[in-house]
């Protein structure tokens, strides 16, 4: 089975994340880039499926040169090879543009199954899996907490607010996973060393057959008009308890219409 895992490099959530003042895109130099956490679960699931059914795992990412760190991490975990979509023309692409570029790359690579994390920690749109499935004309199975592959079919448990739905589709398909699905492995030292020798193919817009008029900041359907830092949290009200603390707390809650 030919599995492609889409991974994304995101700014470390432990550091302060910023937007650039010039073009209002993510400031990638302001924070360390790390692999998006949910993508690790996607890689793990791809590796588990490969171990159970055989085949090959390809990592696909779109991002600037330094996103190669994220590719290295996924290869160190055990993926076989990688494709890196890297082109200045892709900078600032929104979800629609990104899905076009990734879909073109996926058509070029070929796949039985595409696995993604259900959302990234930076943009948090959570729509890429659905958009990819639509553009590729294959079924989408999102928010999977369990994946089973049969003969030409795939069954997942799709997490919902009330429990889960059992969803079945034919392959090829696109799956997005949630963190309940597995426990991602740590790359071993041998895995890290082996990753150095694994092939990484770099593709530009032209190589992947991407329509340049559908990608990039200028062609994005969504536009960041303005942004501002979140206001600092206002100081709270301290009630000094002089025997009437309960009444004062109740008064406060009543004034906010909580009680």
């Amino acid at each position, binding site marked *: 089975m030919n599995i492609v895992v889409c991974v994304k490099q995101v700014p470390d959530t432990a550091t302060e994340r910023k937007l650039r003042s010039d073009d209002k895109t993510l400031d990638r130099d302001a924070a360390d880039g790390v692999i998006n956490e949910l993508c690790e679960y996607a890689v793990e699931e791809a590796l588990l499926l490969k171990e159970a059914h055989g085949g090959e795992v390809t990592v696909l990412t779109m991002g600037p040169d330094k996103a190669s760190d994220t590719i*290295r991490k996924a290869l160190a975990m055990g993926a076989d090879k990688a494709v890196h979509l890297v082109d200045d023309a892709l900078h600032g692409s929104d979800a629609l543009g990104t899905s076009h570029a990734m879909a073109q790359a996926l058509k070029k690579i070929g796949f039985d199954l595409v696995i993604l994390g259900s959302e990234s920690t930076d943009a948090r749109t959570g729509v890429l899996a659905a958009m990819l499935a639509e553009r590729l004309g294959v079924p989408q199975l999102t928010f999977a907490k369990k994946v089973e592959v049969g003969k030409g079919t795939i069954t997942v448990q799709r997490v919902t607010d009330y429990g889960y739905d059992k969803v079945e589709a034919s392959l090829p398909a696109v799956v997005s996973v949630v963190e309940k699905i597995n426990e991602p492995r*740590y790359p*071993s*030292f041998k895995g*890290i060393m082996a990753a150095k020798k694994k092939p990484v193919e770099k593709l530009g817009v032209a190589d992947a057959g991407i329509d340049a008029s559908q990608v990039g900041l200028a062609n994005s359907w969504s536009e960041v008009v303005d942004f501002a830092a979140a206001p600092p949290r206002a100081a709270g009200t301290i009630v000094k308890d002089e025997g009437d603390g309960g009444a004062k707390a109740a008064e406060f809650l009543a004034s906010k219409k909580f009680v």
Partner: protein
Amino acid sequence: MKFILDAEQRLFGETLHRLLDGAGTPGVIRSRAAGEPEPVRSLWRALAGAGVFAPAVPEAAGGAGPLPVELVTAFHELGRHAVPGPLAETAAAAELLTRLGGFSGSGGAGRAGDESGTAGAAGAGGLAAEWLPRIAEGTAAVSLVLPPAVPYALDADLADAVWLVDGDRLCETVPGAARSSLDPGRRLFPVRVGTVLARGPAVRAAARAAGDVGALACAAQLVGLGRRLLEATVAYAAARHQFGRPIGSFQAVKHRLADVLVALEYARPLVHGAALAYGSPDLPRDVSAAKAAASEAAYAAARTALQVHGAIAYTDEYDLGLWIRRARALRTAWGSPADHRARVMSCLAES
């Protein structure tokens, strides 16, 4: 000399850091102190699975070594998380076996016991072939006694083999009753000589190389320990207020913290420099310089952590004390700073 770790080495270190963060080493140390060996053993297997011992074991025996820079990268993280167990001892034993088993490719290897000893070269080779793959895969922990620098068997109760090098003999041992260490995560065992496993000048030479690897691994642990102690202390000094200000804003506190940072930053390149000297005749000198500096830097970090934290630092339930006591124990493990300074001196006098 280039002391910047490459991308693979950084990823290796970060991976171990994450693994150990998730493992919760303070809990492992406390259960060890309470006499439960299983948490340490399972952590040991996880670490070996991540490749902690791969850089110490040659490729032909199931590892990826010798890779001394990767070894110190790993041991830095082990120290940073105060991982218990005979770690430096097992890395040193791997070096000893590598030399005796003829894996190192250097002259004299595989000739252990040529002088009609108890075990011949084949015996030593068999020993290496038996134990090295087990060390790499994490199914064997070895405690090694190398007098005078290592007079007791560390954690013999956790080890699958307890060996002693006595002059030109490598022996199995019979551990005596445990002595308690000031570090609750460590137990020290006096040993009596048992069956001789190999004999000859090659044993003496291999033991010297093993001593250097053990001291180097210990030095890397000390730098990691010191770094963690400094981070914890800086965070505490920023959070703890007195006289209406964070205590870290007072010069007397700032200066102590800065001194620790300087000491650690001087020790770190010495550790990396010693790793790069592996295989060169300067290794003993460079390892000693690294061990002496790392010991003093980590000990300064521990003293400062104790002073700046105040009484909470020696509160048993507070994890900081586990790091403070480990720094004190490792300061004199694998040779005291004075021993190592003396060895630097004698190396310089010879050259």
